[in-house]
C-alpha cells in the first residue's frame, strides 16, 4: 500500500508556542515539499481568524487548511505532533497535540487519500497514540495500520 502521508511530510515534537506557530509548522512541510507557496500558510491562519477554531475537530486534533487557491501547487498532506500542546481557542477540544495540514487543487481531487487519512485519525485513541509516537516511522506505522 502507498504511504498515506510521505515520510518527509511528517515531523514529531515540533516546538510551537502559539497556534499560529503550529499551523506554520505543519504548513512549512508542505512548503518544503513544493506543494504550496507561503501565501497558503497565511490563508490557513486567516481561515482560523475568520471562521474561528472549528478546525479543532476532536480533542487534541486540528485540521489546518484553507480553500483551494492559486497558492496550492499540488495536492498534499502533512502531519506534525507538538512538543507542547497548544490552545487554538476551542473550548471543547483544546489543547491541540496533533496538526494535520492539507492542501487541495480543487474540492474533488485528493479525496480518496483524504478519506483514508480521515478514517485513520478518527480511530479510537489514535490522536493520543500519534501524539506520543517516539519517531516518524512509529507514527507512519500507526497511520498505515489503522
Amino acid at each position, binding site marked *: 500500500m502507498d504511504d498515506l502521508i510521505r515520510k518527509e511530510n511528517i515531523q514529531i515534537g515540533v516546538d510551537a508556542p502559539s497556534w499560529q506557530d503550529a499551523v506554520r509548522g505543519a504548513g512549512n512541510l508542505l512548503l518544503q515539499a513544493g506543494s504550496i507557496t507561503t501565501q497558503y500558510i497565511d490563508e490557513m491562519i486567516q*481561515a482560523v481568524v475568520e*471562521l*474561528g*477554531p*472549528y*478546525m479543532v*475537530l*476532536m*480533542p487534541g*486534533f486540528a*485540521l489546518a*487548511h*484553507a*480553500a*483551494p487557491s492559486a497558492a496550492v501547487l499540488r495536492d498534499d498532506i502533512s502531519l506534525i505532533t507538538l512538543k507542547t500542546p497548544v490552545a487554538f481557542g*476551542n473550548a*471543547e*477540544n483544546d489543547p491541540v497535540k496533533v496538526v494535520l495540514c*492539507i492542501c*487541495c487543487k480543487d*474540492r474533488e481531487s485528493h*479525496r480518496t487519500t*483524504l*478519506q483514508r487519512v*480521515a*478514517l485513520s*485519525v*478518527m*480511530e*479510537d485513541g*489514535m*490522536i493520543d497514540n500519534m501524539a506520543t509516537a517516539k519517531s516518524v516511522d512509529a507514527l507512519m506505522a500507526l497511520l498505515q495500520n489503522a
Partner: protein
Amino acid sequence: MEKIKIQTVCGFGCGSSLFLRMKIEGILKANGVDATVFCGDVGTCLTNECDAIFISEELSERIKDRASVPVFAVKNFMNTAEVTEKVLSFIQDKQQ
C-alpha cells in the same frame, strides 16, 4: 420515500466536512440506513438541497437561524456516541 440527503458543512467544503461525511457514512452503514451524504461549505450550504445539515459546533452559529432544514452541531467528530445519537434521532424523525 425519496432517499434522505445529509449535507456535512465546513469552511470550504473539502476538509473537515469530509471527515464528518466519513464518520456519518460509517454510522449509517453500521445501522443499516440508506442515505446520501455530501460536503458543502458554510458560504453556500443553505442553497444546496438537503434534508439536514451536520456541522461543527463553532460554525453552526453562522447558519442555524437561517436554515430551512434541521442543523445538527457536532462538538467532537470522533465521538461515535455523539454523532450516532444525532444522526439516528434525525433519521427517526424523518421516517415518522
